Every structure is written in structure tokens, then in C-alpha cells.
């Protein structure tokens, strides 16, 4: 610690500095500075100890630990022993003996070894960790999570993203009684999901994605193991499949029992087999918010899906990504959503990274605008007379984002605006395209 005499002579210096430019950060309350430091990698937070005596020990009271692989980048590369020493210095230096959040991001050789990672995870569990973000993209086959993590009483949020197969010891059971949020991004599920779910009675939000299925042909085995707990509030099911997979029907439906009565939000990016799409949507039909990706929509276009497709009685917000849609389908979907208040359509642009795939995929698709079935439906479109409940009584927000609007797009926009104009009023969330339309006197009256 700095002695007080020396600090005094510096205080005059600090006055002159204050005149030139005020220290904007040091006189913030401890709690606020620690909060700022909690967003930094722990190594960077430690560096602030040398800024001034004010900062000497602040990093030791931060409740978050973050380790990113670039923090360990040195030339020449660090030895394992050196990294271990750094980690143990961090734990020795910390004044607070509790960890709220632990983040480990590893994608290169500089990152921590699996052994060190396991040590960190175990230490975090013993310090009552509530949140773990663990993204590990190194090729390390058969990594095993430490046992203590799998029975952590305090853990509320767990995000795992692996690029290798996680090894599960079937003798162990998972008990995570406080876990509310689970993200599983895995390579080859091999039963992980089902295994996790069984031990998470309080789970509310789930994101699930199997990278193996994206890259390879899907086998029945992996998909069979997917079971969503019925008590979920938020579900993000992201399972975009490769276009070259030929046997779409082999994609097994998620084995579901009943529906999810508490579901609030669902994000669906799954290419279903024909027989399981209706089943899946029946399971999530209670949701209030629904996001559908382009290829999910595509599976929904399959003729057999329409049969047994549920009504979304609670759906308030529908967000759809589309490419080359058939709007008759959309209108049928709207008819299934009686209290829909907000409709967002993103046309030809997807928030998903797989965007190029999607377009490739579509080109080879059998639904093209000139097949006879489509023409028939087009005729039906113009004849549509039955009012759609949500349009005449609930829709207050309509967003359509897209570039290069086709005749179909225009027709659809016109349809919505005409049918919902009383409720939409001035609240249309216009974008430039729509504004252009309105300028051109295209719509309304």
C-alpha cells in the first residue's frame, strides 16, 4: 500500500490535472466501478490495480470472472504452469469469496487446458456460482464436465457451447434445482439434452442446437433423444439442416408429451419432417411470441402439415423470416392467430448465419411459382372473403422489411393494410419500401 506522505505531494498534482481534464471515473462509487470491471476479462480488470491507489484493490471485489483466450496470447506461448500460476494468483488475490458469473471463451491454442477449465468450474461451484458461460471451440474429444458442476445448487444459468462431443458418465445424475436458463450448443448430442433436462425441474428457458446435425446427415438416434420439458417458458429450437440431406422424413419428431402450457416465447429454426411439424406446433401452440425461420416456414408449406395445424390462441407477436413465400399460406396462418397484435416480416434477409445455405436451398426447392398448385392457390387468394379475426380486431403493428418487393409482396402488403386499416391506424411501422409504395399511391382507398 502507498504511504500517506507520498500521496500528499501528489495531491497538488492532481488539482492541476483536474483543471485541465477531470478524472471522469475514479470518484465513482466502488460498486459502480466494480460493475464496470465485471464486464472486462479478469486479466484486464487486474491491470487496473496499477492505475492509482484508488484502483489498487477494486478488482478484488468483482463478482464476475472472465477468461478469454486472447488474454493468454504471448510470444513465445505461455506454458501451462504459467497459466496455472496466473489463475491461482487471481483466486488468492480476490477479497470476495463468491463468484456470481464465470465466463470462459476458448477458441485457440492460447486458451486454458481442459484440466484448468475443470478446476475453474469446480472452484466456481464451491463459491456459489449463479451463471456459467462456457464456450469452448477447441477440438478436444470426450471432455467431461466436473461432477460438482452437475449437482450445483446455486446455478441459475448455464450456457454451454462445444465444438466437440461431450462425454457423459451415465452413472452420474444431474441435479440442478435452481437452473432456469440452459443453452446447449453441442456437437453430437448423444443424449446430452435428455440427460440435462431430467435434472432441471425449474428450467424456464432453453436454447438447443446440435452442430453435428447441421453439418452431417441426421440419424434417427440423435433426434429421438430430444425431449422438451413441458414447463418451459422460452424455447429456442435451432436445428437448421443441411440441404443435401435427402431423407427428410427420417428426421424424427421431438418426442413430446402434451403441450407446454406456460410457454411464452418460441424461436423455431427447424426443418421438420413432414409428419412431425404439426405435432411440434401443437406442442408450442400456447406461446405468446413466435419466431419462425425461413426453412421452418418451408416445411410448413408441405401439404400434409396444413392438416391438424393448431390455432395459436395466445399468440400476440409473430416474427417471420421469409424467402420467396406464398402469401396464401401466411394468410392461412394469420387466420389461426385470433389475437395477434404485431406482425413482423423480414423478407429476403435472415438474422441467421446460415443465410447463404437458405438461398441455395430454396433454388433447388420444388415449390416454384409456376407449378399448377400455386396457380390454383393464387386464384383462391383473390376470392378470399372471410374476415380474419386478428386483422379486423387486434393487429396494431405491422412491419415488413425487405428489398426488391415482388408483385406478391405488394399484394400481401396491400391485403394487410386494407383489412386492418381501422386498427393499424397510423401505427404502421413503415420502412422505406412501404413509404415508397404509399408515395406511389399504391395502397389504400
Amino acid at each position: 500500500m502507498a504511504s500517506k506522505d507520498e500521496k500528499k505531494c501528489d495531491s497538488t498534482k492532481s488539482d492541476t490535472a483536474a483543471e485541465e481534464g477531470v478524472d471522469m471515473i475514479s470518484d465513482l462509487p466502488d460498486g459502480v466501478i466494480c460493475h464496470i470491471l465485471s464486464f472486462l476479462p479478469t486479466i484486464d480488470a487486474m491491470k487496473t490495480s496499477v492505475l492509482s491507489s484508488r484502483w489498487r484493490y477494486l478488482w478484488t471485489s468483482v463478482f464476475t470472472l472472465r477468461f478469454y483466450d486472447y488474454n493468454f496470447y504471448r510470444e513465445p506461448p505461455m506454458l501451462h504452469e504459467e497459466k496455472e500460476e496466473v489463475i491461482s494468483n487471481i483466486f488468492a488475490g480476490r477479497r470476495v469469496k463468491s463468484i456470481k458469473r464465470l465466463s470462459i471463451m476458448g477458441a485457440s491454442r492460447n486458451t486454458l487446458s481442459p484440466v484448468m477449465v475443470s478446476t475453474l468450474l469446480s472452484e466456481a461451484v464451491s463459491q456459489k456460482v449463479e451463471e456459467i458461460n462456457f464456450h469452448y471451440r477447441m477440438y478436444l474429444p470426450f471432455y467431461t464436465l466436473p461432477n460438482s458442476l452437475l449437482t450445483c445448487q446455486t446455478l441459475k444459468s448455464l450456457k454451454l457451447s462445444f465444438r466437440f462431443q461431450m462425454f457423459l458418465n451415465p452413472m452420474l445424475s444431474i441435479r440442478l434445482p435452481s437452473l432456469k436458463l440452459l443453452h446447449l450448443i453441442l456437437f453430437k448430442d448423444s443424449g446430452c439434452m435428455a440427460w440435462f433436462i431430467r435434472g432441471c425441474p425449474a428450467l424456464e428457458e432453453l436454447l438447443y442446437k446440435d452442430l453435428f446435425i447441421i453439418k452431417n446427415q441426421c440419424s434417427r438416434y440423435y433426434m429421438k433423444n430430444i425431449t422438451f420439458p413441458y414447463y418451459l417458458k422460452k424455447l429456442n429450437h435451432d436445428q437448421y439442416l443441411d440441404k443435401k440431406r435427402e431423407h427428410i422424413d427420417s428426421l424424427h419428431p421431438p418426442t413430446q408429451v402434451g403441450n407446454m402450457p406456460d410457454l411464452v416465447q418460441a424461436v423455431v429454426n427447424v426443418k421438420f419432417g413432414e409428419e412431425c411439424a404439426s405435432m411440434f406446433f401443437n406442442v408450442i401452440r400456447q406461446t405468446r411470441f413466435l419466431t419462425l425461420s425461413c426453412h421452418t416456414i418451408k416445411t410448413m408449406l408441405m401439404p400434409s402439415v396444413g392438416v391438424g395445424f393448431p390455432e395459436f390462441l395466445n399468440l400476440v407477436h409473430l416474427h417471420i423470416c421469409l424467402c420467396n413465400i406464398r402469401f396464401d399460406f401466411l394468410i392461412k396462418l394469420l387466420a389461426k392467430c385470433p389475437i395477434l397484435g404485431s406482425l413482423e416480416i423480414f423478407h429476403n434477409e435472415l438474422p441467421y448465419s446460415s443465410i447463404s445455405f437458405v438461398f441455395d436451398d430454396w433454388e433447388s426447392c420444388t415449390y416454384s411459382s409456376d407449378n399448377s398448385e400455386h396457380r390454383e392457390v393464387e386464384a383462391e387468394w383473390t376470392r378470399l372473403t372471410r374476415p380474419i379475426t386478428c386483422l379486423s380486431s387486434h393487429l396494431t403493428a405491422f412491419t415488413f422489411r425487405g428489398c426488391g418487393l415482388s408483385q406478391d409482396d405488394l399484394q400481401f402488403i396491400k391485403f394487410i393494410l386494407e383489412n386492418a386499416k381501422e386498427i393499424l391506424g397510423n401505427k404502421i411501422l413503415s420502412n422505406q419500401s412501404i413509404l415508397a409504395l404509399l408515395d406511389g399511391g399504391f395502397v389504400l382507398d
Partner: protein
Amino acid sequence: MQKTEGEESKAENEEVKQVTLMTSDGVKMKVEISIVYEMEIVRSFIEVNDADHSVPFPLPNVSSHTLDLIIELVKNEYDDEFMKTFSHDELKEVLVAANYLNMKTLLDFIATAIANLLEKKSVEFIRNFFNIVNDFTPEEEAEIRKTNEWVFQDLDED
């Protein structure tokens, strides 16, 4: 958002529910309830007491200027560009107020922005950037650096 002097009875009949807040400089401000609900300190009070929204809720640690900035930030859905127009003092005041009002999203938003300024930077750069005066003697500083030698070894980019 409007500032009002004295009229307290109207608020409840408004279409958009509003809550009157009284800032440290004695200004009464009507604020939409959706924004007020982000202020945990006010929200918990309102919810517990089912309070009459027209009675001004005192915020002795927040000036009207700071509250203006906070409301604009929330309305702009935490727009980065808007925040960049703040002076250092304003940013600091908003940060302290967000902490006091217990506005988690706002606090995280600003803390992340400041953390990004600190990340991957050398000690010297941070000192210069925030005008932090180094009150360590060279010997003291050397000693601190030595205890965690490795941390300070990296390739600083300024």
C-alpha cells in the same frame, strides 16, 4: 415528456399512465410508467404502496438534466450514437443515477460501453484517457506490477 408545475390531479386520467417524479433541483416531471418501471427503486415503492401516481416521488440524488438524459436514452432504446453525444460529466451523472435508481439495463449498457474503452488497453492509455492521476511512487508501482508480473507483460496496443 413534460415538466409540470403544481397540477397533480390530471395524471391518472391520462391515456398513457404517468408518474410524477421530483428531481433534486425541485423540478416535477411526468414520466411514462413504462420508463418508471425500469427504475427498480421507484417501481418497488409504487407496487408496494399502490401509490397515487400524481403525488411526486422524490429523487433527491438525480437532477432534472440527468433525468432528461435517462428518459431519452430509454426512449431511444439505448442508442449508442445518442450516448456518444454525452459529455464525460453527463455520462458519469447518468451512471451514478442509474446505479441509484437501480436501472439494471441502463447500468449494464453504460458499464459495458466504459468497459469496452478499458479492454485491451495499456495502463498508460487508460490513465490518459480518463485523466487518472498516478499517485504511486515509481517503487510502489513497480512492486504492484511485480506481484502480478505476467498480467502487465502483454502486447499493449494504444
